[in-house]
C-alpha cells in the first residue's frame, strides 16, 4: 500500500510532460503553455485590429465617401483602437512575461498557476463579446476608444452594455495577470538574485504590474459609472442631472495615461536585453535605468490632463500639466542615452532582434519628440484632435510596443522552439515593416499640422496625395506581417536546430537552460552570485 502511494507521487514528479489533446491548453497551468496562448491570441487580435485599420485606410485612400458608411467607419476606428490596446499589445506583453519571467529569475513556474489559466481564458470570451457587438442592432461601439461620456452613454448604441461588460472582463484579466507577476517576482527569485541583480525585463514588468493594479480598477470604476448612468438613472456624467462630462475625461485619463506606459515599459525591458547582447557589452547604467522606470511610473500619475488641454482648464492647471509632462522627457532621455551608450564602441552585429531594437530606439525617439511638441499647452490647442496626434501615438506605440514585441519574439524564439528562424526572411520582415510604418505614419504629421482632423471619414482635396501615400504605406505594413506569420510557420516546421546559446553576447538565466526550454525549468533554483 505504502509503496504504491510513493510510486504514484514519484510518477507525478518524473513524468510530467504536457497533457494530451485540447485539455493541455484548456486546463493548462504551465507558464510556457499559457504564454504561448497569450502570444497566439494577441497575434490573432493584431490581424483583426489590423484589418479594421485596413478598412479605415481604404476609405481614406481618396477624398469622398466610397466604401463604408460613416457610422461603420466610426465603429472601425473605435474597435481598431480597443482591440490593438487591450487585445494585441497588452496580452502580448503578458505572454512574454509568462514565458520569460520564471526562466529569468530561476523559478519553476509562475506563483499562481491557476489564476494564470483563468486570466488567459477570460480574454477570448471578452473579445468575442466585444467584436460581437458589431453584429448587434445599432452596431458596435462608435465613440472612439476613449469612449467619452455622454457620447458613450446618452448617445451610444444599445450594444454599449456589452462593451462595458467586455471591458470589465479584460480588466479583471489584466489585474489577475499583474498580481501574478508581482507575487512571482517578489517571492520566487533564485537565491542570491537581489532586486538590483534582476534582469531589466523583470524590473520593467514589476513596475508595469504595479501600474496595472493601480489603474485598471479605476477603468473598471469609470465603466461602472457609465453603466449606472445608462441603466440605473444616476447622473455621473449627465450635466442635466448635476453631473459633469469633463469629470469623465479626468477619471478616464487618470487610467489612460499610466495605461500608455503599461504598453511601453515592457518593451523598454526587452530592448535592454537585446541591445547589450548584440553589442557584446553590459547594459550601460543599469541602476539609472531602474530609477528612470520608477520615475516614469510615478510621473505618469500626475500628467493626465495634458490629454484635455482644450476643455477649458484654468491657466494654472495647464501650466502644471505642461511642466509635469515635459518632466517625463528627462527619465525617458536617460533611457535612450543609455541604450545608445551601450551600443557605443560595442562590437555590434545586426541580426533581426537588434534591427528591431535599433528601429525601436530611433522611431520611439521621433514619437517622443512629437510628444514634447504636444505637451506645450499653447500649441496643443492647434494640434488637438488632428492627425498630428494620430502620428504621435502611432510612432510611440507601433515601433514602441509592437517592434519591442517582435524583437523579443525573434530574440527568444530559438530558446522557445529549439529551432532557428530564417534570418533572411526575418530581415525582410523588418525592412518591409520599417518602410511601411514610416510611409504610413510620417506623412500624418504633415496632414495633421495642415489641419486634418482625426476620426473623420472624409477630407478636403488638399490632403489627398498624402493620404494616398499613408494608405499605401498602411497596406504595405499590414502585408509585411504576413511575412512574420510565414517565418513563424517555417521555423516551427523546418527550422534548423538552434544552439544552446544562439546569440553569443546574450546573458541571463534563461540561456543556461537546454534548447528548446524544457516543459518544466528550474525544478531546483539555480544559485546567483
Amino acid at each position, binding site marked *: 500500500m505504502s509503496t504504491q502511494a510513493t510510486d504514484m507521487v514519484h510518477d507525478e514528479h518524473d513524468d510530467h510532460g504536457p497533457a494530451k489533446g485540447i485539455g493541455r491548453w484548456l486546463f493548462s497551468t504551465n507558464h510556457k503553455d499559457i504564454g504561448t496562448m497569450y502570444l497566439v491570441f494577441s497575434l490573432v487580435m493584431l490581424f483583426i485590429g489590423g484589418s479594421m485599420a485596413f478598412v479605415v485606410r481604404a476609405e481614406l485612400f481618396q477624398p469622398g465617401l466610397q466604401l463604408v458608411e460613416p457610422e461603420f467607419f466610426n465603429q472601425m476606428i473605435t474597435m481598431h483602437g480597443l482591440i490593438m490596446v487591450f487585445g494585441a499589445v497588452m496580452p502580448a506583453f503578458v505572454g512574454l512575461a509568462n514565458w520569460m519571467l520564471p526562466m529569468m529569475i530561476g523559478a519553476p513556474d509562475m506563483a*499562481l498557476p491557476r*489564476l494564470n489559466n483563468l486570466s488567459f481564458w477570460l480574454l477570448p470570451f471578452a473579445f468575442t463579446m466585444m467584436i460581437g457587438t458589431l453584429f448587434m442592432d445599432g452596431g458596435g461601439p462608435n465613440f472612439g476608444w476613449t469612449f467619452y461620456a455622454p457620447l458613450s452613454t446618452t448617445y451610444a448604441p*444599445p450594444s454599449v452594455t456589452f462593451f462595458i461588460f467586455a471591458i470589465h472582463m479584460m480588466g479583471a484579466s489584466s*489585474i489577475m495577470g*499583474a*498580481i501574478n507577476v*508581482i*507575487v512571482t*517576482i*517578489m*517571492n520566487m527569485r533564485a537565491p542570491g538574485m537581489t532586486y538590483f541583480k534582476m534582469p531589466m525585463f523583470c524590473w520593467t514588468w514589476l513596475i508595469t504590474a504595479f501600474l496595472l*493594479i*493601480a*489603474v*485598471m*480598477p*479605476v*477603468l*473598471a*470604476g*469609470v465603466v461602472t*459609472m457609465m453603466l449606472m448612468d*445608462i441603466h440605473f*438613472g444616476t447622473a*455621473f456624467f449627465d*450635466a*442635466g*442631472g*448635476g453631473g*459633469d462630462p*469633463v*469629470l469623465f475625461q*479626468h*477619471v478616464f485619463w*487618470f487610467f489612460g495615461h499610466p495605461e500608455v506606459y503599461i504598453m511601453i515599459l515592457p518593451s523598454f525591458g526587452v530592448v535592454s536585453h537585446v541591445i547589450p547582447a548584440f553589442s557584446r557589452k553590459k547594459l550601460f547604467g543599469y541602476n539609472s535605468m531602474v530609477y528612470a522606470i520608477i520615475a516614469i511610473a510615478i510621473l505618469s500619475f500626475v500628467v493626465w490632463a495634458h490629454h484635455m488641454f482644450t476643455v477649458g*482648464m*484654468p491657466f494654472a*492647471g495647464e501650466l502644471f500639466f505642461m511642466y509635469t509632462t515635459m518632466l517625463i522627457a528627462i527619465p525617458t532621455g536617460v533611457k535612450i542615452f543609455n541604450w545608445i551608450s551601450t551600443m557605443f564602441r560595442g562590437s555590434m552585429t545586426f541580426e533581426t532582434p537588434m534591427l528591431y531594437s535599433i528601429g525601436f530606439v530611433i522611431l520611439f525617439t521621433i514619437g517622443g519628440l512629437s510628444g514634447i511638441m504636444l505637451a506645450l499647452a499653447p500649441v496643443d490647442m492647434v494640434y488637438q484632435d488632428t492627425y498630428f496626434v494620430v502620428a504621435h501615438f502611432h510612432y510611440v506605440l507601433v515601433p514602441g510596443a509592437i517592434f519591442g514585441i517582435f524583437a523579443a519574439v525573434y530574440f527568444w524564439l530559438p530558446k522557445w522552439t529549439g529551432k532557428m528562424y530564417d534570418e533572411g526572411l526575418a530581415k525582410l520582415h523588418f525592412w518591409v515593416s520599417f518602410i511601411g510604418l514610416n510611409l504610413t505614419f510620417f506623412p500624418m504629421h504633415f496632414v495633421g499640422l495642415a489641419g486634418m482632423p482625426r476620426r473623420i471619414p472624409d477630407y478636403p482635396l488638399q490632403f489627398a496625395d498624402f493620404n494616398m501615400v499613408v494608405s499605401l504605406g498602411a497596406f504595405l505594413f499590414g502585408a509585411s506581417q504576413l511575412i512574420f506569420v510565414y517565418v513563424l510557420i517555417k521555423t516551427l516546421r523546418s527550422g534548423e536546430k538552434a544552439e544552446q546559446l544562439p546569440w553569443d553576447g546574450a546573458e541571463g538565466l534563461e540561456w543556461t537552460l537546454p534548447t528548446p526550454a524544457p516543459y518544466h525549468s528550474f525544478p531546483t533554483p539555480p544559485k546567483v552570485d
Partner: protein
Amino acid sequence: MQIGRPAPLLAVCALMFGFGFLLVPLYSVFCEWAGINGKTAGIYENVDALPVIEDRIVKVQFVGNHNANLSWPFKPNQAQVKVQVGVQKKITFTVVNPTNSDVVAQAVPSVAPSEAAPHLHKIECFCFNQQPLTAGQVKEMPLVFFIDSDLPKHIKKITLSYTLFDVTPRLSKRVAVSSSIKRQEQFALAHISSK
C-alpha cells in the same frame, strides 16, 4: 505585512476601485475650493451679515442656451443689467414648452469668468429645482441674486449662462426611442402590405 502576496494586492485593487468613485466628490470639492469650473453655489442663506453696499457697478449679462437636441425657446428677459455691488437684483427668464406633452426641465448654471463664481450669490433661482412644464406652457422664471464686495477688482463684467436640459424621460428614454422605431417599422410594414 508583505506586499508581494495576493491578498494585499487585491486590497490595493479594491481601494483603487473605490478611489475611482471617490474622484467624483473630490472633483466637485476641488473645483469649489479652487473656484474653477464656473459653478455657482446653491441658495444663499447667510442672513446675519448683510453685504456691504459699495459704490461700484458691475455689468451682469445673461445667456439662455439649451442642450443640442432641444428646441425649446429659452431666454432671459433682460440681456444685461448693471448692478451695484451688494444690492439684490431680480430678473426673469422665459421658457416655452412647444411640445404637446408635459415635460420637466432643469437649468444648469455657469459663470464666466470662473473666478467670479464664488462671489455671485443667488437668493432665489429657477435652477434650484426641476421645472415642470405642461404642454404648450409659457413660464416666466425668477432669479434673485447679488454680487458680494469681495469680487476681484479687475472684474467689470460677469456672464451668467444657463443651459436647459430635458430631464423628463430620464429612465424611459431608451424604451421610448426603440418603441418609436418599432412604431415606424409597423407603419412601414402596414403600408407595404396594403399595397
